Every structure is written in C-alpha cells, then in structure tokens.
C-alpha cells in the first residue's frame, strides 16, 4: 500500500456503542474471572519461572583464612578464599554454582592439608551476611574462629542467593537429568503410535462395522478415564512382575521400565484417543464412499484414499493429545518406571527427595516445552478439522459383512479383555491376604487407617474435593464461557480471557502444583492462608481441568443464537433473567457434562495435587501413590479400585440426572 493512495478523511470522534448496565455487569464478570485465572495460573507460573532462575553460588570473596606454622603460631597474614582458589584452582567455576542445600569444604583450598598436622587455622567472613558451618555450628559474621586441623575439615561454606542461568547450565551438564528428556520423548512417541493405532482400530470397528455389542464396547473403552494412571502400573506389577501370573510372557525382560510405562500409558490414554478418532470417523462423508464404489476402488484402496485422509485431522489431534498425556503423566512412571527416568518423575525427585526446589523448577520449564508444542499443534489441527464438515455431507451407514464384522468383534474383544484384565487383577490382588504366599481372600488390605497415605479420611477428602471442584468449577467455567461468548465488543478483554482459558491444558499438572507452592507458600502473599487447606486443592484442580470444561461450555453456548440476547434486550429484560430462564436450562446437559468431567478428574488426579496436600487434606489418589511407595501395593490397588467404584457411581448418578433433566427441560428438542 502506498501513501499516495490514501485519501485524507477528517478525524471524527470514534463511534462507540453506548454501554448499557448489562454490558457493564457482563464486563465486570469477565474481569473477575480473568483476575481469577491470573491469580490461579499466570502468577504461579511467573513465580515458578523466577524460581528456575534463582541460583545459589559460593561467594569466595566472603571468606578469609589465617594459617599458623607447625608450632601453632599465626604470623598475621590473611588469605582470601577467592585468591587461594585462583592460585590452587581448588574449585572450577561451575563447581561454585549449587543448590540451596550446597556446602563447600574449606580444606580443598589447602593442597597440603592433613587432619593430623599440628597446623591451626582461623576462618572468618568478610561481611555480616557471610555464613559458614563448623561441624554443625552455624557461624555468621566477621569474627575470627580458630580450628585445629582435625576440626578444620568440618569447616564448610554456605552459598548465597543470586540469579542467572546457573541452574540450567547445571541441568544440562548432568547426564542423568538430560537423559530424561530423550526418555520422555521416546516413550511418549512410542506410546502415541501404539495407542493411536489401537484406538483407530477400535473406533473403526465401532463406526464402520455392524458387529454386535457396540454399546458395551463403547462403555468398556471409557473405563480407563475413571481410574488414576497409577492403577495400570500396579496391575502390571501383579501381571508381569517377578511374582506376576503372566511373568513368562516377559521372557526375562523386566516390566519395570520402558515396557511397563508404555503398556500402562496405552491403557490410560486409550479412551482419549478413541473419543477423538470416533468423532473424526463419524463426520466422514458417505458420498465419497459411493464414489469409490462406483470407481471400482478396492476396499484397501478406499481405506487409504478416503478413510484415512478423512480422519487425518482426528488422528493427528489424537496423537498430540496422547503424546501430551504421556509426557506429563507422573503416577505411572513413578510406579512402574523402575530406574527409567522421565521428566515428570524428575521434578518429584528433585523437590521431594532432595528439597532442591530450584532444580525442580528448571525441570518444569524443560517439560513445559514439549507439552506446549504438542498443545499448540493440536489446537492448530483442530481448527482445520471443522472446515471438513459441509452442509451437504451424508452420514455413512455401514453395511453388514460377516467376515469383517466378526473380525472387528474379535479385535474389540481383545482390547476389552486387556482393559478389564487390568482392573480385574487389581481387584483380585486387593482381596488377597499376602501375595504370593497366602492366596486366601481377606479384607485386610482395606484397613487403610493402619497404613501410610491418610487412611479412609483420604478417601472422604477425595470425595469432598471432587464435589467441591465439580460445584465451584462448573459455576466459574460456565459463567466465564457465557460472558465471553455473549458479550458484544470488548475485544481485548475477551482475547485475554480466551488465551488464559486455553493455557491450563498446556501446563503439566506437576508444573502447576510446583508453581502453586512457589506462589502461595509465601507469607507475603495475601492468599497465603489457603496454603495447606482444601481450598488450594479445589483452586488447583479447577484450574488444571479448566480448558476442556471451558470448551464444552463454549460449544454448547455456540449452539444458541445470539439473537436470544437481542430479543431479551429489546424486551427490556436484563441478561441475568435470560441467563437463568433460557440459557442455563437449554445448556443443562453440557453443564452436567462439565460437572462429571470435573468430578471424575478430581478423584483421579495425582500430579497437580501431590505437592499441595497436607496432613488433613490427604487424598485417595495420593494415598495410592504413597502406599505403593511404601511397598503396600495391595492396599494401593484396593484404594485405586475404591476410586474406580466411586467414579462409576458418580457416572450412573450423572446419567440418571441427565435423563431426568432431558425429559423435563429438553422437550423442545423433540418434535
């Protein structure tokens, strides 16, 4: 565009629609929920990032020595530790960067040091904030402290806090940590390929065959959503561990490691992939198949030229979702990973095992990269998927074909046996008295109160958390989605909102949980009081599962024409009346779906809450983790199955309520 082409128009006042009372109310609602998302998401993430850059290093200029001669006489000359280090290069620069728990031995500055020698040493700090330790005595300040040779070996310096890339340098120079990146990527990629292939076969059978029992298979395929990802890990131990009933299948290989992680990942990601691919296959256009038949294309050719391209966005999307689930999952590799390190487990090990919060934050940042990438790709692909649907599409109806249908049935049965087998073995193991020496049945493993992990109280807490999350989460999510969908104008606010609402899906649970520690466990934070309470667990869980709930609500709201709002305002009805009398009743099925989604996930989540629970708010899913950790594997299986049954009951209640609601409020849908 060239300048000359522009025509000068006198600047008039910008035309702006006058904002009514309704608009202001709606905008303030958006504002409130944006503030909520900033507090529950943006600030904690920022706190985590700054933690990753907060380093500890030894400031050698802070310390000075005096050394006596063999008779124990000091001649008064003072050596600075940094000068000594320059001379004898006791420590390389990278050795001076450390974590908060680091300690630096003073003896290394003296190459001829021996703990038997009669030489005496004096040490002091050069400033009032220099800290060193003699044995376990903490010494602060500039006073000289004398030590004989034997005591001098107990002199260690404490690091000071600073900021920079030191933690990242340390991370990338520690091979065992860096290897986790590759491990995580490989495991996630392999699991993705297997899961998507298996789920495609399953979805294909459901959509394109006339086999029997489709409804039952659909139900069975959804089961893994109802259990924590730890449970398949426990089941695999009983199936393929050294005392497992199918141990021979492993042919000497260990289930603890990549094989176990992949098998378990396939189990818990299967329903996610299956759902996405089913949707993709369901929208295929039957006219293309008719064309293929009339062009005499073989079934094989049709499959590759029509079916696969038609479902390609679904397949890609499923792949990214599965990849993301596997790489961010923590429970499964923790249980069955053995020595095979994965990024999410590294975060846990750094924080809980070594109290190295800074390194935990660094691993979190590293884990964020693939998770964010997978998420972005998925969003891009999903946007394209919608464009495939055209108004003239005709729904494909499968025709009976005996051989094919039986094949599908056999295949689906195999998958169903795998899924049910995992659950069955857990329930069986939970009822065994002492595996493998006393196989009589008992309820001993349900005496949770006698074990680590929180006991039955943990189970009650989980139900409480799930109910609270479902209740508050649904309200926040649905109101937020309504305001952002139905507000006119206010582009900036809505843009920020949309972005924040999509963000949680890209944030791994471990990362969110750790970020919450950094942000909320800080006395300067006015919200500090919620730390260690049920409130922070609810806040964290709602935020963690915000995106999918939000998308469900938006989809439902998009089905409602904006003219409802116009009509309401021309009838001089405030928007909240419309919201309560029309929008909510119409969207009730979606609202119930959001509640059950939040409920089930709050029951099974481990990663986001593992850093946040306290003694009084221990959770069932965490109890599974901790009991397995302590070696009480059978009780862990028992608790895992309790979560499963609870979720089944919740599902049944949901179905019953939905049916009742549909009959009462959705009559208009039927003609």
């Amino acid at each position, binding site marked *: 565009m060239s300048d000359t082409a522009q025509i000068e128009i006198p600047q008039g006042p910008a035309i702006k629609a006058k904002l009514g009372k309704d608009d202001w109310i709606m905008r303030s609602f958006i504002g409130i929920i944006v503030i909520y998302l900033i507090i529950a998401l943006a600030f904690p993430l920022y706190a985590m990032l700054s933690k990753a850059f907060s380093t500890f290093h030894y400031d050698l200029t802070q310390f000075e020595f005096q050394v006596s001669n063999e008779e124990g006489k000091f001649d008064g000359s003072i050596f600075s530790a940094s000068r000594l280090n320059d001379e004898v290069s006791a420590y390389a620069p990278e050795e001076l960067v450390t974590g908060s728990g680091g*300690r630096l031995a003073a003896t290394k500055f003296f190459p001829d040091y021996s703990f038997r020698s009669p030489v005496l040493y004096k040490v002091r700090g050069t400033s009032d904030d220099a800290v060193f330790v003699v044995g376990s005595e903490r010494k602060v300040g500039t006073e000289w402290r004398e030590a004989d040779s034997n005591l001098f070996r107990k002199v260690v310096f404490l690091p000071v806090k600073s900021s920079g890339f030191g933690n990242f340098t340390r991370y990338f120079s520690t*091979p065992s940590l860096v290897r986790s990146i590759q*491990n995580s990527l490989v495991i996630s990629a392999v699991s993705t390929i297997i899961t998507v292939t298996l789920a495609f076969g399953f979805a294909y059978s459901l959509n394109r065959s006339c086999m029997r029992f489709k409804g039952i298979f659909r139900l069975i395929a959804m089961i893994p959503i109802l259990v924590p990802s730890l449970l398949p890990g426990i089941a695999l131990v009983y199936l393929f561990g050294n005392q497992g009933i199918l141990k021979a299948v492993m042919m000497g290989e260990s289930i603890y490691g990549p094989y176990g992680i992949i098998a378990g990942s396939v189990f818990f990601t299967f329903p996610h992939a299956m759902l996405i691919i089913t949707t993709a296959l369901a929208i295929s256009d039957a006219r293309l198949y008719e064309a293929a038949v009339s062009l005499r294309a073989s079934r094989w050719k049709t499959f590759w030229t029509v079916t696969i391209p038609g479902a390609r966005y679904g397949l890609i999307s499923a792949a990214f979702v599965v990849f993301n689930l596997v790489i961010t999952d923590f429970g499964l590799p923790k249980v069955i990973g053995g020595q095979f390190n994965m990024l999410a487990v590294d975060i846990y090990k750094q924080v*809980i095992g070594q109290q190295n*919060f800074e390194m935990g934050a660094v691993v979190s940042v590293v884990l964020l990269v693939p998770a964010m990438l997978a998420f972005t790709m998925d969003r891009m692909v999903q946007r394209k998927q919608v464009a495939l649907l055209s108004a003239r599409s005709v729904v494909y109806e499968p025709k009976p074909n005996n051989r094919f249908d039986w094949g599908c049935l056999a295949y689906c049965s195999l998958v169903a046996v795998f899924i049910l087998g995992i659950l069955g073995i857990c329930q069986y193991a939970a009822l065994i008295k002492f595996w493998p020496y*006393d196989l009589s049945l008992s309820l001993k493993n349900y005496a949770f109160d006698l074990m680590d992990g929180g006991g039955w109280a943990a189970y009650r807490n989980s139900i409480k958390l799930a109910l609270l999350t479902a209740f508050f989460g649904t309200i926040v999510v649905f109101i937020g989605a309504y305001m952002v969908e139905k507000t006119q104008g206010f582009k900036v606010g809505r843009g920020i909102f949309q972005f924040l609402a999509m963000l949680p899906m890209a944030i791994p649970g471990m990362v969110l949980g750790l970020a919450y520690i950094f942000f909320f*466990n800080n006395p300067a934070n006015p919200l500090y009081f919620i730390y260690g309470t049920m409130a922070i667990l609810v806040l964290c869980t709602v935020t963690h599962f915000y995106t999918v709930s939000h998308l469900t609500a938006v989809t439902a709201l998009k089905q409602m024409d904006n003219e409802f709002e116009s009509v309401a305002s021309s009838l001089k009805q405030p928007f909240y009346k419309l919201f309560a009398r029309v929008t909510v009743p119409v969207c009730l099925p979606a609202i119930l779906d959001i509640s059950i989604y939040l409920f089930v996930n709050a029951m099974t989540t481990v990663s986001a809450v593992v850093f946040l629970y306290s003694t009084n708010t221990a959770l069932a899913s965490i109890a599974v983790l901790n009991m397995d950790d302590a070696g009480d594997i059978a009780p862990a299986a028992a608790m895992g199955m309790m979560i499963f049954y609870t979720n089944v009951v919740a599902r049944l209640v949901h179905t019953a309520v939905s049916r009742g609601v549909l009959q009462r409020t959705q009559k208009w849908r039927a003609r």
Partner: protein
Amino acid sequence: MLPKTIKTIVAGLLLGATTLVQAQAAELTVYTAVEAEDLARYAETFNKDHPDIKINWVRDSTGIITAKLLAEKNNPQADVIWGLAATSLLLMKTEGMLEAYAPKGVENLDPKFVDKSSPPTWTGMDAWVASVCYNTVEAGKAGLTPPASWKDLTKPEYKGHVIMPNPNSSGTGFLDVSSWLQMFGEEGGWAYMDGLHENIARYTHSGSKPCKLAAAGEIPIGVSFAFRGAKSKAAGAPLEIIVPSEGVGWDMEATAIVAGTDDLEAAKTLVDWTITKKANEMYNTGYAVVAYPGVAKPVEHFPTNLLEKMIDNDFEFAANNRASILAEWQKRYDSKSEPK
C-alpha cells in the same frame, strides 16, 4: 422459639466458655515423620501428664516434612519437631532454624543421642538401623546362599536379586550410602557401590519398599531397615533379617524446638517430656534402640546383635556432605537401565 435475650445469654456463655478453654490450653503445631499409627498414642501418653497442651500434628514422610520445613524457613509454622531424622535436623541447625535448649534431664540420655553443641539444639528419641531383608523361599528357588556381609552382596550370584532405596529420595538409602563411605573410606565406599550397582535390580523411592518387596518375593534381597523387616516378618513373610558383619548405618528420630515459636514455654515442656524415661518406653514399642539407657526391651523378630553392629555414625559428615554425595551418586548410578 426462645426469647431473644435468652439466646444472647446462651451465646455469650458459650463464647465465654470457649475463650476460657483457650486460655487454659496451649496449642503446639508439631511436625513429625513418625508412623501414622503411632501418633495418636504418643499424644495421648503425653496428655496424661500435660492435659493443658494440645498437639496439632502435621505428619508426612521424612523427605516431605524436611522440604516443608525448609520451604517455611523464613516464616516457620511449626513450634516443635518431634520425630524427624537427625540428618534433617542438622541441616536445619546449620540454617539457623532451631532453638537451642537443654531439656531437663538431658544428662540421662546416651550422649550418642544428644547434639554435641551446648546447649544442644536437638535430642534423639530412637534409632532406625539398616538391615538386609532376605526372602528365604525365593532365595531358595533361585539357589542363593544368604549373604553375611555388605561385601557379599557384590558377588555375581546376586545379580539382579538385590534392591535398595535411592538415596536421593529415601533417608534410609542415604544412611546406607553414608555408612559405606564412612566404613570403607571415600574411595573404597564408591568402589563398593560400583560393585553393588551391578547386582541391583533397581532403586526404589522409599526406604521401606525394598523390604516389602522382599517380603512379597518380588526381589529376594532388600536393603532396608530392621524395624520394617520385623514388621513384615510378623505379618507372615518368609523373611530373615540379616545384619551385615561390617556394621550397619543408622539414623535417629530426634526432637527440636523451632526458632521463632509463639509459645516457647509450652514447647520446652513438650521437649522436656519427650526425653523422659516414660517417653522412651513408649518409643520402645516400635524401636529396639532408644536414647534412654536401660529402657529398651527386645522387640519381636528383631536381630539381637543389632546394637553392637551400629557404626559410630558421624552425622555432621553426613549432613555437610549430603549435597555432594547425592550429586556424585546421581552421576554414577541414577540411570540404571537405559533403553537398549
């Protein structure tokens, strides 16, 4: 319906009553890593002597409680730590987080169980001692002979049959590593672990898991602690608890007052009580080795020679070198099975 005035009076009385109760009772927030099943008993026994002090427990595993305390360094929430590994308390001592206090009667304790500073910052309660859990049934199936020493565990016959806790996440794992470094010297210790590493099936996150896995026959030999082994044996596992001949590492559960507590007097009362003979008798129910000499009665299934095999543990060495030992360990062993 009650008249309004009566309601107000009742409410006022109730309010008065609660404030009265609060005025009498001190409350202490006590952080602990003691087994969940023992906590109620500990508080009950204490309250028999001091009904006016209420204990609010915050309990978790050693690693998590330590992390929690360190995270709250500048704004401590705990008044007293009762039952946490001494190595963790030493770490906190060097961070200046503990209040030095000599509890009444501290001179009665075995000096091994009292901080060397004067006044001491922490006092020990009981010791948990490393041991090897050996599943006789599974070992028999695999044709193994019982090991008698740590060095025996490096023999090729045990390849893949030994499991131990990862010192990076487990206190028990760390006390093993630190004891080997103290017994065999720095070089000898690492050389020993290089050999042992060849036989390790995998490293677990927690210290009790190796013994429970041995009890379940998953892996025949678990490096764990004696207390756990005795419990599993009592539950019917075909276990033998082996005390390696070179000596065994140990750590103690200890007690300290957190600097900056709101109620120093109540905290002192509690800590005074925790070192009494009565308290030590209470610890003895689960732990064979306690701080008060002459109290300990044998615990069922506990190896008898355990006390004499405990090494002279240098806790300061363990605490001050913890970070570098763990870094070195991680560098050498923390990627045991790589994809083939």
